[in-house]
C-alpha cells in the first residue's frame, strides 16, 4: 500500500473516531478529496522541481501514534528559551502536553486548536478564520483533512503580549516512523503585538515527517514577529506551510533558521490585503552532509503603498543542497510598492548545490522592485586580511561566515533568542569564536 492509499484509508477511520460535528467537518471532507485527486507533489511540478519527496514517502509512516509518551522537562529543557518566561504550547508526538505547556485564557487565548474546534464559544472565530488564507494545494489539504491539534492563539485588539509564545512539537520515536499534521491558527487583533517561536524537535533516530500548516491573521496595525527554529535531527523532515494575511498598517516578520533536519521545505506565503503593510522574510540556512532545505516564498501584493523585504543567506557544506524560490506577485492596484529581495549563498564544498530562482510578476506600473542573488565562495582577500592578523584559517572562515549571516540576526527582537541563534551558528560552523557573540 502506498503512503497515499494508507492516508486515504486512515482518513475513514479518523472520521469515525472523531464523530465530528465541528465547524470544519465539511472542510475536512473536501480537503481529503483535494489530496486524493492531486496526491503528493512531484518534481514535474515547477514549484517542486528541485525538491523530491520520493525517498521520504517510501517510509511506512504511522498516521496516528498508538500510544502517548510523556517526557520529563529536564530532558527537553534545552529546546525551550528557558532564560526568560514564555507562554508554551507543547505537543509530544502530536498530542498536547499540559505538563510541559503554559497557556492562558486571561484576556487572550493562547491554547489549543482542539479546544477551539470543540467548544461552541470559539465557533464564530473558527468559521471566520480557519482555512481562510491557506491555499488549497495537496499538502495543505492533507493537513486540513487531519487537522485536529496545534496552537490556537487569539489576541484581541490593543493587547500587547508581554512574553513570547513558544510552540514546540516534540517527537519521541514512539513509532518506527510517524507522520504528523500540526495545525496552528493565529489571530492577532488590531494594534496587538506578539512574538512567537516555533520549533519541531525530534528526540529519536526514528523517522518523522511533519506536514505543518500555520495560518496567521494580522489585523490593522498589528505587529507579529515569528521565528522558526529548524535545527532537527537527520531523521526528521519538515514541510512547513505558512500563510499570513495582513490587513492595513500591519507589520509581520518571519525569520527562518534552518540548521538541521533531513529535508525541509518552507512554503511561506504573505498576502497583503491592506495598504501600508510591511512583510519581512529573513532566513539563515547552514547545511552540511546530505541535508536539503527549500525556501519557497510568495509575497502577494494586492493593496497599494506596501513594502516587503526578503533577505535569505545560505552556507552549504558537504553534499548539502539548497533551494531559494522567491516569488513576488504585484497586482495591478498595488502601486507605490517597495519590494526588495536578496538571496546570498556561499558554497564551502565542491559538492554542495544551491538553486536560486527569483520570480517577479508585476502588473502595476509604479513600483520599486529589486532583487539580487549571489552564489560564491568566501572572499580570498578577506581571508588573507584576517589570517594576516594572526587568525587561523578555520577561525577566519568562521568569522567570515558569521559576518555573512549576521545581518539577518540584526532584526531578531528577542535578545535571548538572538544569543541562542548566535550560539547555534557558532556550533554549526564548529568554532568557538574568541569573543562573546
Amino acid at each position, binding site marked *: 500500500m502506498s503512503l497515499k492509499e494508507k492516508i486515504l484509508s486512515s482518513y475513514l477511520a479518523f472520521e469515525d473516531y472523531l464523530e465530528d460535528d465541528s465547524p470544519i467537518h465539511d472542510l475536512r471532507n473536501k480537503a481529503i478529496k483535494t489530496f486524493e485527486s492531486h496526491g503528493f507533489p512531484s518534481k514535474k511540478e515547477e514549484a517542486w522541481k528541485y525538491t523530491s519527496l520520493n525517498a521520504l514517502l517510501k517510509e511506512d509512516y504511522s498516521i496516528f501514534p498508538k500510544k502517548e509518551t510523556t517526557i520529563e522537562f529536564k530532558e527537553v529543557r534545552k529546546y525551550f528559551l528557558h532564560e526568560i518566561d514564555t507562554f508554551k504550547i507543547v505537543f509530544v508526538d502530536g498530542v498536547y502536553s499540559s505538563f510541559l505547556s503554559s497557556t492562558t485564557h486571561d484576556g487572550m487565548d493562547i491554547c489549543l486548536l482542539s479546544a477551539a474546534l470543540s467548544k461552541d464559544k470559539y465557533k464564530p472565530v473558527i468559521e471566520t478564520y480557519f482555512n481562510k488564507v491557506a491555499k488549497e494545494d495537496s499538502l495543505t489539504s492533507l493537513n486540513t483533512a487531519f487537522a485536529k491539534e496545534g496552537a490556537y492563539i487569539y489576541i484581541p485588539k490593543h493587547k500587547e503580549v508581554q512574553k513570547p509564545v513558544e510552540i514546540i512539537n516534540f517527537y519521541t520515536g514512539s513509532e518506527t516512523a510517524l507522520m504528523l499534521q500540526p495545525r496552528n491558527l493565529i489571530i492577532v487583533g488590531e494594534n496587538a503585538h506578539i512574538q512567537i517561536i516555533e520549533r519541531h524537535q525530534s528526540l529519536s533516530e526514528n523517522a518523522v515527517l511533519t506536514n505543518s500548516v500555520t495560518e496567521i491573521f494580522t489585523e490593522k496595525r498589528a505587529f507579529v514577529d515569528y521565528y522558526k527554529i529548524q535545527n532537527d535531527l537527520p531523521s526528521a523532515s519538515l514541510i512547513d506551510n505558512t500563510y499570513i494575511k495582513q490587513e492595513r498598517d500591519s507589520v509581520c516578520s518571519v525569520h527562518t533558521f534552518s540548521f538541521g533536519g533531513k529535508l525541509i521545505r518552507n512554503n511561506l506565503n504573505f498576502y497583503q490585503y491592506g495598504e501600508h503593510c510591511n512583510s519581512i522574510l529573513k532566513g539563515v540556512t547552514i547545511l552540511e552532509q546530505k541535508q536539503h532545505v527549500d525556501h519557497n516564498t510568495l509575497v502577494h501584493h494586492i493593496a497599494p503603498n506596501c513594502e516587503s523585504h526578503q533577505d535569505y543567506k545560505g552556507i552549504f557544506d558537504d553534499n548539502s543542497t539548497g533551494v531559494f524560490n522567491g516569488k513576488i506577485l504585484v497586482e495591478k492596484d498595488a502601486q507605490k510598492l517597495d519590494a526588495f529581495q536578496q538571496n546570498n549563498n556561499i558554497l564551502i564544498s565542491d559538492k554542495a548545490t544551491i538553486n536560486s530562482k527569483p520570480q517577479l510578476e508585476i502588473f502595476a506600473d509604479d513600483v520599486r522592485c529589486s532583487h539580487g542573488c549571489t552564489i560564491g565562495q568566501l572572499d580570498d582577500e578577506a581571508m*588573507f586580511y584576517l589570517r594576516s*592578523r*594572526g587568525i587561523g*584559517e578555520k577561525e577566519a572562515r568562521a*568569522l567570515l561566515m558569521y559576518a555573512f549571516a549576521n545581518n539577518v540576526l540584526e532584526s531578531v527582537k528577542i535578545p535571548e533568542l538572538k544569543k541562542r541563534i548566535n550560539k547555534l551558528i557558532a556550533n554549526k560552523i564548529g568554532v568557538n569564536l574568541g*569573543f562573546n557573540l
Partner: protein
Amino acid sequence: MLKIKNLHASVEDKDILKGINLTVNPGEVHAIMGPNGSGKSTLASVIAGKDEFEVTKGGIELEGEDIKELDPEERAHKGVFLSFQYPVEIPGVSVTNFIKTAINETRKAKGQEDMPAAEMLKKIKEKADLLEIDRKFLSRSLNEGFSGGEKKRNEIFQLAMMEPKLAILDETDSGLDIDALKIVANGVNKLRNADNAVIVITHYQRLLDYIVPDYVHVLMDGKIVKSGSKELAYQLEEKGYDWIKEEVKA
C-alpha cells in the same frame, strides 16, 4: 630582522618580483618607492604570506628563520604585520571584537592564555587615544562604511595593538589628509624601538617627512634598482623616476 634574498614571485605564471634583495635590521625604517606596477604591493603581500603569489626562487628570513612556507597567520604570530592598502570590510564584527580575536589567537598560537579583559580594555583605550580614535568608532563593524582615512587609521590602531616586530605599511598615506597623516605617523613613531622595524611603501615623499627612513629603495619592474638615504626620496619627488630608468639602462 628581515633578510630577503634573490626573491622571485609570480602570479598565474606572470613574474612580478624578479630577484629582490633586502636586509632590514632591528630599529630601522626602510622606504620602498617606485612607479605603479613595479611590484611594491606584491612584495608586501609576499612577505605577509598571501598564497595568491607563488615564490619561485629565493628566500625570506625573519630573525634567521625561513618563513617562506609559512601560512599568513603563522607569520603574524612571529611578528609580521601588514597594514593593507585596501582593508577589507567585515560587517557584523566590531573593531574591538576583531582586535581581541586577533590578539588572543596570536597568544594562543604562542601557548599563552587570553589577555585578561581589563588589560585588553586598558590597552585598547591607550592605543585609541594615541591615534585619536573615538570610542564609538571601536564598536562599529570593521571597516564597514569607513572613510579612506578611517580605514588607514584603523590599520595603524591594529598595528599598535599587535606590536609586531616587522611592520609593513602599504601606501598607508593614500587617502589621508595632512592632519590624519601626522596622527598616523606619530602613532607609528611612538611604537618604534630598537627591536622592531618598519617598511614603508609609498608613492610620495610626503609621509617620509614624518616617518623618517634610514634607507630608501627604488623598486622597478620587480627589482630594487637603486638604494640610498632619505635624500633619494627628495630626488624622486623632484625628478620622478625617468632618470633612474636611464641610469638602469646605462
